[in-house]
């Protein structure tokens, strides 16, 4: 009896251990070795700070995914936001009809997909149809009523009304290969077949993605031949990997920037973003339904101090609710902004009906600590307002609870922020009165029919100067009404090894243009 039991137990225990000892996944070399070989064969090693949920370009908008898609997929054109113009890619020329309702693209005939197939206009139609079923792509496809392919190298988009940022939008429609997607049964979770300069060579969504150069790329093969992304979830571990030489480039946390800037072995870069951090007011209920109170707070904040604490100085401090980097807005100098003016602020407080000689309790400010840098602003603001005898308490919440509260109007004042795209028309999402009570929509619970109308006009106005006027008016209303007040716009900071020639833009980076020093 004892012997049988002993054997049974030993068997169970050893099986449990052996199951664990099963073959190790063979993926790439040991991470401890630095890249060997000449500059031509050197692998570019990057990292992602979270595991990938999917590689399907229409299924998610996670930033780590765009790093991969920007190398492997392309749209009909590439929109250069610095120049404010589109560059040919899959399409070599394009034109818009006089009424602005038809866009015609003439495609190259030598564009190849990674599986060897030549691109045809039907692939573009297929991609559009697939994207229109995906909710996330809706903002990029706004206004399009139909897409047709009169022949293999021509695509025609018909719009229901003119769309001013049409080229910017259509650049985000990555073109898929119909044959490949059909063969994969529409499952693009771990496969990529695009027209970009890099193709997917291996994908383990939890640990590592590897791309290799695509020889059939119509603009010529890239200089760097292999790129890998390792999933390293902890920021400190990422930083140590970069210093140990296991990574070549890293998107840094703000606190790490000064260390790397002082280190000769690395090049650092500060890249502006379209992101804004703002104090969110609930304009539909007391006390912040009082516009004078909101204006008063806007005058009392010292934004430089807040940006110093929140972004360690790696950001621009201003009160603009939409980042001045965004296309469509007038120049920053033409926009009205709040500066730190305590006299005006206190005067407005009195006008709002508050007795500035006594303590003013403005309630609870809600935030979510998972977004560490936004939450850092809260105690700074609390201290700044305390100087004027204004009391504000802080309530950190779990992220899902916070999202529900802020979009449901269950708050009076909160700290939040976001980035809604590179063109001003996209901000309709958060300022339009029809999006009050909608998740991801009008968190300010603010309704202004003039702004609603202006956004609609701005989406259709094709003349750039008139467009700027429209968005300038919107910014004026936002300045006067203060549904929220901006605090600053952060930079993205990067560090990479000295022997890598790299550039990063606010829209991400394109490894096609990079190279290793010889």
């Amino acid at each position, binding site marked *: 009896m004892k012997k049988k039991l002993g054997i049974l137990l030993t068997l169970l225990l050893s099986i449990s251990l052996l199951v*664990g*000892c099963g073959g190790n*996944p063979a993926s790439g070399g040991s991470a*401890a070795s630095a890249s060997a070989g000449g500059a031509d064969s050197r692998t570019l090693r990057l990292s992602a700070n979270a595991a990938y949920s999917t590689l399907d370009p229409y299924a998610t908008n996670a930033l780590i995914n765009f790093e991969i898609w920007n190398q492997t997929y392309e749209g009909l054109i590439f929109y250069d936001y610095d120049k404010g113009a589109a560059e040919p890619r899959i399409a070599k020329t394009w034109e818009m009809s006089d009424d602005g309702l038809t866009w015609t693209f003439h495609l190259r005939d030598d564009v190849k997909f990674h599986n060897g197939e030549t691109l045809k206009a039907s692939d573009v139609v297929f991609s559009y149809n697939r994207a229109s079923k995906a909710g996330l792509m809706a903002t990029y496809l706004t206004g399009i009523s139909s897409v047709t392919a009169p022949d293999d190298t021509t695509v025609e988009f018909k719009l229901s009304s003119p769309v001013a940022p049409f080229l910017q939008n259509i650049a985000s429609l990555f073109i898929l290969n119909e044959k490949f997607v059909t063969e994969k049964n529409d499952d693009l979770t771990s496969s990529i077949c695009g027209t970009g300069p890099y193709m997917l060579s291996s994908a383990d969504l939890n640990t590592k993605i590897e791309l290799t150069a695509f020889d059939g790329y119509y603009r010529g093969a890239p200089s760097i031949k292999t790129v890998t992304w*390792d*999933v390293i979830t*902890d920021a400190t*571990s990422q930083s*140590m*990997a970069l210093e140990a030489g296991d990574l070549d480039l890293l998107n840094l946390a703000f606190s790490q920037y000064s260390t790397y800037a002082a280190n000769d072995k690395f090049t650092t870069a500060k890249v502006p973003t379209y992101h804004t951090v703002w104090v969110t007011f609930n304009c539909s209920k007391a006390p912040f339904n009082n516009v004078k109170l909101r204006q008063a707070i806007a005058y009392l904040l010292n934004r430089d101090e807040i940006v110093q604490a929140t972004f360690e100085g790696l950001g621009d401090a201003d009160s603009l609710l939409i980042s001045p980097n965004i296309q469509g807005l007038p120049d920053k100098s033409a926009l009205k902004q709040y500066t730190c003016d305590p006299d005006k602020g206190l005067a407005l407080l009195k006008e709002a009906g508050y007795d500035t000689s006594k303590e003013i309790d403005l309630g609870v400010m809600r935030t979510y600590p998972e977004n560490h840098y936004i939450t850092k602003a809260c105690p700074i603001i609390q201290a700044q307002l305390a100087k004027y005898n204004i009391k504000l308490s802080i309530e950190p919440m779990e992220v899902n609870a916070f999202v529900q509260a802020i979009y449901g109007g269950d708050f009076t004042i909160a700290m939040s922020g976001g980035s809604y795209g590179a063109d001003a028309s996209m901000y309709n999402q958060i300022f339009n009165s029809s999006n009050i009570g909608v998740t991801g929509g009008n968190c300010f619970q603010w309704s202004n029919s003039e702004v609603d109308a202006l956004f609609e006009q701005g989406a259709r106005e094709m003349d750039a100067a008139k467009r700027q006027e429209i968005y300038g008016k919107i910014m004026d209303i936002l300045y006067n009404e203060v549904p929220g007040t901006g605090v600053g716009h952060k930079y993205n900071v990067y560090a990479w090894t000295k022997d890598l020639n790299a550039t990063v833009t606010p829209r991400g980076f394109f490894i096609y243009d990079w190279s290793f020093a010889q």
Partner: protein
Amino acid sequence: MYKYFLKRILQLIPVLIGVTFIIFFLMTLSPGDPGTAILGASAPPEAIQAFNQKVGYNDPFLTRYGRYMVGLLKFDLGNSYSSGQSVSGEIAARFPTTLKIAAFGMLFAVLVGVPLGIFSAVKQYSALDNAARVISITLAAIPFFWLGLMMIYWFSLKLHLLPSFGISSWKNFILPVVSLGIPYAARQMRMARSCMLETIRQDYVRTVRAKGAPEKVVIWKHAFKNALMPIITLIGTQFGMLLGGAIVTEAVFSMPGLGTYLITGIRAKDVNAVMGATIVMAISFCLVMLVVDLCYAVIDPRIKAKYAG
């Protein structure tokens, strides 16, 4: 004996029903929805609603729970909301990593901690015993992430001996296993020491010594076996918990295991992923406890007699 074994396996069923109901209930009760959590709050509202509709989140609670349990009967854990992939596939890809870290971590802890504890007990109040006690308290109190980061700092960054992330080779497991094993070894040492001390004081040990048995036989053949029971219980509970994923270790060393899967799933309100991971953890824990109980029978003839009878 086998009847007991079978009975314990059948007891898994009510445990699973309880666990699944509670977790499902909690996930439904908690704020937020998968669409917002997975697509992000800045995603267009229509996209968020379409997503929630697609994963069936808007259906009533009992409908969803019933649907899930029916799937469970067919051994189908459903598809993860975030990736659309089968949950059982994703867990199967991650469980070996967690199992390896847990198993080798415990092995390290036991091989280092238990002998040290016994030695400490036998040579009580010696210099070694005092040193071991102080060190074990310190090591038991060290946070895993600090130890992990320090080890990466020294062994990866400064000495370039071992990799700092990933699971591509057996070398990747050395640092996580040691950084996890050390605090657990310290706890094992303390438990082994106190159990051993208690046993040594017993009358029967004095009797064996009086009979003239060599000290080695006294310690290992008599005292140790009696002290073993609480130690095995501790090993079992710790191993069971580790199978739930040493989340901090997995995060610091970027190893894709069950723990990180669970946390990501909770944050994303990915109900299927969380349920799948919890079920696997619950089953593993029950099985480990079963093995622990069977071990008792092997070690203690009194318990074995109860089963045989």
